């Protein structure tokens, strides 16, 4: 810097952080862990309690007891109780996250065995699920899922966004009941959506299974997700923008279409992606409605339609080692799809609204 300010040689006191852990505290925590681990090893060795579960349970209890005793002696009973509670909530988060780690690991370990190139280049028309894994693939399933999802988007995203616009822009007489109904709709079990399409369309009208029926059921499940996520985004658009639009002489229609919606564009796309992530792996309605074909079928209105969830479902229900390996490979592909969608939604959602 050109014009440096000459700092007088006064030692500025370093800001102290009395809440931060001192080296002594760290050593004590480490000793606590060690003590608990030691206790669990000794107890498992000398008592009849055996197994992984015993290790974990004794470690947890020993940790709680030692931690409690330590804090009780050092800082009194209030600190002792506090340490017990901290032990329990920490255990809760660890137990809550464990299944996720286990699921991700399992899907990779079991799924990657079934991965090979033909998986993405062929369908099942000349192979059965019980064939060796190298025969056949899930091209038809990926095609089917893509078509089902695109149709579901076409059906549900306009409705969901219109609902959100009603709730935020018009906010009329029905806003409260509609908000309530959208919430209620998000709890409709997927099998009920399937039964509804069966009752409303398959039996009285088409009398055959095809892709559009599956898409309709998926759209029912997708609308509430899209509507709620879009509503949250539209609420974030500052009222100034709307007022500016109206002040320039725009009608409400022009203001919403030219100002509000473009400002919320990335958020609305995020809402759509969240909706897709919600339905991409939905299985029950597809089992009821799509007929689950084994060959590529690009016609949504005619013939059975394969899909990734159905492929997994079929592989699992056939029950042989080969078919189950297929199911895990299918799950791996589906999970990667969901992860990509999730990451995309996160990325777009973290950008500032209004850009």
């Amino acid at each position: 810097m050109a014009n440096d300010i000459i700092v007088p040689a006064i030692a500025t006191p370093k800001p102290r952080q009395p809440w931060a852990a001192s080296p002594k505290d760290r050593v004590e925590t480490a000793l606590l862990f060690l003590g608990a681990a030691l206790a669990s090893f000794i107890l498992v060795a000398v008592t009849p309690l055996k197994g992984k579960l015993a290790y974990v349970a004794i470690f947890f209890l020993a940790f709680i007891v030692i931690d409690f005793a330590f804090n009780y002696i050092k800082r009194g009973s209030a600190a002792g109780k506090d340490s017990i509670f901290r032990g329990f909530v920490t255990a809760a988060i660890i137990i809550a996250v464990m299944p996720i780690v286990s699921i991700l690991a399992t899907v990779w370990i079991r799924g990657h065995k079934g991965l090979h190139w033909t998986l993405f280049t062929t369908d099942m028309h000349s192979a059965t699920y019980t064939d060796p894994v190298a025969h056949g693939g899930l091209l038809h399933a990926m095609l089917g899922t893509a078509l089902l999802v695109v149709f579901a988007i076409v059906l549900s995203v306009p409705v969901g966004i219109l609902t959100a616009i009603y709730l935020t822009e018009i906010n009329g007489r029905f806003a409260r009941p509609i908000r309530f109904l959208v919430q209620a709709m998000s709890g409709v079990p997927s099998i009920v959506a399937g039964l509804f399409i069966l009752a409303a369309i398959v039996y009285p009208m088409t009398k055959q299974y095809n892709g559009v029926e599956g898409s309709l059921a998926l759209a029912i499940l997708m609308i509430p997700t899209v509507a709620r996520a879009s509503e949250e985004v539209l609420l974030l658009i500052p009222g100034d923008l709307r007022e500016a639009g109206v002040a320039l002489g725009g009608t409400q229609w022009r203001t919403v279409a030219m100002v509000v919606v473009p400002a919320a564009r990335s958020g609305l796309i995020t809402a759509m992606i969240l909706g897709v992530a919600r339905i991409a792996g939905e299985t029950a309605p597809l089992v009821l409605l799509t007929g689950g074909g084994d060959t590529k079928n690009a016609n949504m209105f005619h013939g059975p339609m394969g899909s990734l969830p159905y492929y997994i479902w079929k592989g699992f229900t056939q029950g042989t080692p080969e078919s189950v390996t297929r199911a895990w490979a299918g799950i791996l592909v589906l999970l990667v799809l969901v992860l990509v969608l999730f990451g995309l939604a996160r990325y777009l959602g973290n950008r500032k609204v209004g850009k």
Partner: protein
Amino acid sequence: MSSTLIEPKPGAYNGATPAKREITTKPRFSDKVFRGVVTGGGLSSLVVLGLILGFLLFEGYATLKAQGIHFLTGSNWQAVQNDAGVVDLHKSQFGIAAMLVGTLVVATIAILVGVPLSVGAAIYLTFYAPNAIKKIMVTMIDLMAAFPSILFGLWGFFILENSAEYWAKLLHKYLGFIPFFKMEVPYFSRSPFIAGLVLAIMIIPIVTSISREIFSQTPLDRIQAAYALGATRWAMIRAVAFPYARSGIVGGAMLGLGRAMGETVAVYTVLNIVYKVNFHVLISAGGNVASMILAKFGEASPSEVKALMAAGLVLFLVTLLVNSLATVIVSRSKKGR
């Protein structure tokens, strides 16, 4: 464009006073159309819910009428055909009590296991976690909400089953005197207990995120007041955060209950579906309404499908009720204070 505003066109203004414009708040035609379309779109949820109710009632009405209250209280599912090979609605028995009990049993286990875990996790994330850990954990739990249910089912069947069977044996060995844990034949796999555990894991994301949202809205001044009075974190949570968040947590738990009651594929994969009333959670037999519909659908005759529609109607109404109550409770506790 802007230049035309500044320099009026020659000859455009002839010196006469312009006619007074009418100032009105009446919406233009385009706005009327816009409002109509948007309101129509907004009412779609009402329409869809109404249509679901209507069509399921229409299809299931014959069964409901023939079976009467036995549809809810009976626990037999037998389609009896008459001489012409058509299902005789009055002679056959369709009662979903067994599956209603199963639904309740499995969902109760899910709530008992899942809600304390989720609330504990939410407390850790709100009041204890360092920022870096918090971010990672919140992302992971949100991600879990996007996992397809068939994934939970397969994971439960192939991975959790092994551990859970062992836990079930321990429960039977040490707590076997409790009626729910009784069993005659020691066959522990694919029990409602294990299905309940899978559902517990499935509801963790939703219950955690709702509890976390409500805990994080605890007024900061009250938290700081508690600390200023010398409260430890536990004392603060007990005195301030819990009372504030209690009703919200109840609502979140009920949303989880609704999710657990309507779950189909995960339960179908994990549970050994047997059509009988079973309160003994460790025995390898059970089911819930949703998975029963899926299981019976494959080989159902047309009139049996109608009975399944009636079962779907009951499931729809029950989950709708639970979800609506939950929504009311959650939204009240969010803005009440």
